[in-house]
């Protein structure tokens, strides 16, 4: 991996824009890679178009689509309300998956999913679909925006308080729940003195009837000393202080590196340094994502297939390839059984991901899901892989190896489209993103 070695040594090369040349040509494999990371997969015509247009122009469309995304989201906001007595948020999960499948801006939903894991707000704890809906809307609003604005919303978010056992924050009994998440998720650890003082700053917040309310007389307005600074801080100010810590931007960049580039190797501090410095300036998430996705490193072997697909990615890449719609309520349940219960990650650390996704039971479950998606059934009413292969004018075995693996040498099976498609999907390579 000459490129990877080079990247490890030279941040300047790593983060410079990838420009294909004879040694590092723009290939079908790289189009697949890009759509796996910056979207939830692609149809064959999308891959072909990307191949013709080149990486940077394709990225223009992925980062800043010309379609009316706002109108699309408004329409879906309208569809998904109100969840009513949807206690386990089943409808909300299903609508989210629909959005991922149909949005003109899949990168936006991809980043919403990233922040969902980062915040780890869980309906298993909050037990309130309306609060989860507001949480999801908050994540979506700022998913590619200014992270300081997102965090300002999060420290006043009902679902997040409920998840982190902070339904009551009394003056007489400061609750470490929310500040612990705040410090651990952004700084990696929560030192006890900072945690205790931060808990005082968050006193006064209570959840009543699924709404977070501030009760002035329960707020400890006294001086607190956090990160060596003293002041009459409240929760909002603690959030700002956290993002002023040098470790905060570094932690977030590292998390995003794992999400967009590689889960296998922990990146060197020097490699991330330019990105951290830029992000710490204004927490512009779109700019950070753009730097990562356009980079030499992103299109190098150091990133290629260096992530395990999470269950959402696994299922949606199959569906996108089939150019099909899907019933997302049963799909959300199937994904939960594979370890990714949307809106209910297992702990405050979110989904651990990586190799943890794959054990004999989840692999069997993934293969079963792949097979089910290729047939008429609970997920896809009328699944027709043969028609997709035919439409795109290729023999089935070669087509599905190209569509799902971008590797004709992995073509298996015969002219039966379902068998050929399953043969491609059951290759261990397909477990990787």
């Amino acid at each position: 991996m000459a490129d990877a070695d080079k990247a490890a040594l030279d941040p300047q090369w790593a983060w410079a824009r990838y420009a294909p040349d004879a040694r590092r040509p723009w290939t079908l494999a790289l189009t697949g890679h890009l759509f796996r990371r910056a979207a939830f997969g692609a149809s064959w015509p999308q891959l072909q178009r990307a191949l013709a247009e080149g990486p940077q122009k394709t990225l223009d469309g992925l980062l800043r689509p010309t379609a009316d995304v706002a109108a699309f989201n408004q329409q879906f906001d309208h569809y998904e309300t109100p969840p009513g007595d949807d206690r386990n948020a089943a409808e909300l999960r299903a609508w989210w998956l629909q959005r991922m499948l149909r949005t003109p801006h899949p990168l936006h939903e991809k980043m919403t999913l990233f922040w969902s894991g980062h915040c780890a707000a869980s309906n298993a704890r909050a037990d309130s679909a309306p609060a989860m809906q507001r949480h999801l809307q908050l994540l979506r609003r700022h998913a590619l925006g200014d992270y300081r604005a997102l965090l300002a919303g999060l420290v006043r978010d009902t679902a997040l308080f409920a998840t982190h056992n902070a339904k009551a924050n009394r003056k007489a009994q400061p609750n470490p729940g929310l500040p612990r998440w705040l410090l651990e998720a952004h700084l990696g650890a929560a030192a006890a003195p900072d945690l205790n003082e931060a808990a005082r700053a968050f006193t006064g917040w209570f959840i009543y009837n699924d709404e977070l309310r501030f009760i002035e007389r329960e707020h400890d307005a006294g001086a607190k000393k956090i990160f060596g600074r003293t002041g009459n801080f409240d929760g909002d100010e603690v959030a700002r202080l956290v993002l002023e810590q040098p470790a905060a931007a570094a932690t977030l960049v590292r998390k995003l590196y794992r999400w967009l580039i590689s889960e296998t190797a922990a990146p060197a501090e020097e490699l991330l340094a330019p990105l951290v410095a830029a992000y710490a300036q204004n927490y512009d998430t779109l700019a950070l994502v753009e730097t990562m996705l356009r980079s030499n490193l992103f299109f190098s072997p150091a990133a290629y297939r260096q992530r395990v697909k999470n269950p959402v990615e696994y299922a949606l890449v199959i569906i996108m390839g089939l150019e099909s719609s899907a019933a997302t309520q049963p799909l959300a349940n199937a994904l939960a059984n594979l370890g990714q219960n949307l809106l209910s990650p297992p702990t405050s650390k979110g989904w651990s991901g990586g190799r943890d996704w794959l054990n004999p039971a989840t692999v069997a479950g993934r293969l079963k899901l792949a097979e089910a998606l290729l047939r008429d059934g609970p997920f896809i009413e009328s699944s027709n892989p043969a028609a997709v292969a035919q439409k795109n004018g290729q023999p089935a075995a070669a087509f599905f190896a190209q569509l799902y693996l971008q590797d004709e040498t992995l073509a298996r099976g015969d002219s039966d489209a379902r068998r050929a498609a399953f043969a491609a999907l059951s290759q261990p390579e397909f477990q990787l993103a």
Partner: protein
Amino acid sequence: MTTRREFLKVGALLSLAAGVPRLLVRSALAAAPAQDQTILVVLQLSGGNDGLNTVIPFADDLYHKSRPTLRQVAAKAHRISDQLAFHPRMDGFARLFSEGMLAVVQGVGCAKSDRNHPGAMHMWHTADPQPPGPPTGWLGRAADQLWQPAAANLPAAFIGAIPQPFAANAERVIIPTVRNARDLLCPAGAATAAGGEPLLACARRATAAATATSARLDTVLRSGGGDYPQFRLADELRIIAQLIRAGTGIRIYFTELGGGGIGGFDNHAGQLGNHCSLLEQLSASITAFARDLQRDGLLDRVVLMTFSEFGRTVHENGRRGTNHGAAQPVFVVGGKVKGGLVGAHPSLADLDQDGQKVHTDFRCVYATLLDHWLGLESRAILGAAHPPVDFLRT
């Protein structure tokens, strides 16, 4: 006729594996996880079991006075000491007890226990009496300790019809909910290859492990499923026996009786018939499970423990039911279990708000199983050291 025991042997498996490529089965068996690992089965009795009518102090006048309509008479019950007897419907338990394979750990619970269902159950699940407790369950933490991504093992599974209880909440390992043993079968035609870059090699190992498990399980499922009564719990224990026999390598099984609707152990009114039926299901299903494993010489590798969120009040409540109490008996079954009564039957003269008093902290039972049965470090999983309870033969 091939006996089921022989199915564990390579030759018998190959001869029965019609439709499975021979090479695949051979490599599957070669890759089978060690067949000597110990296995823990945890059975949750949802709703709060009336331990007093499960292990009955038939010689105690206070029992008969406290239970005018619910009391069981000595003549029908199964005596296990000169003071105590199993409920009349629990003949299977009585036989396991007399054979030395069943321990009754008495007076188990927690001094600080809550008496509402979610709070008490959460305590048993997290192994922490102080709410909100840790973000994971005790079995989830044990599974995380057993998880080796590089080995593509499957540390634990939940077998049941209800949503996975919190005890199985893990930080890293994904614990499947298995409703049918066929859930772990792979569709035919999955690819196998080995090696490659580290992450690809990992995906290949996981795929190979899944298909190998699937091939062995398929063989086991074709061999039929032992003699079990027609109860849901029996079906679930049958699945567990099949997964054990198939060498899935699962070390922790978690299953449940009584949850997910009416008919559970929470009998505030008209307890008699429902509780009798549940105890019969419990005793008959576990006994069938033990016999099934015994036939294949597997019972020495398995320990099953039961728990409920609390016991019940000693006095019945005027509606022929009982209310939420405190201490309960925990049942431990297995070939390596030191059978018998462990600890005293909590006195009926000295009660804790009408519940029997706890003398054995539930975390001591957990610690015994984690340290001395699964070979894990209970201190790391439970957050503190707890003295063991003497119910295992070593």
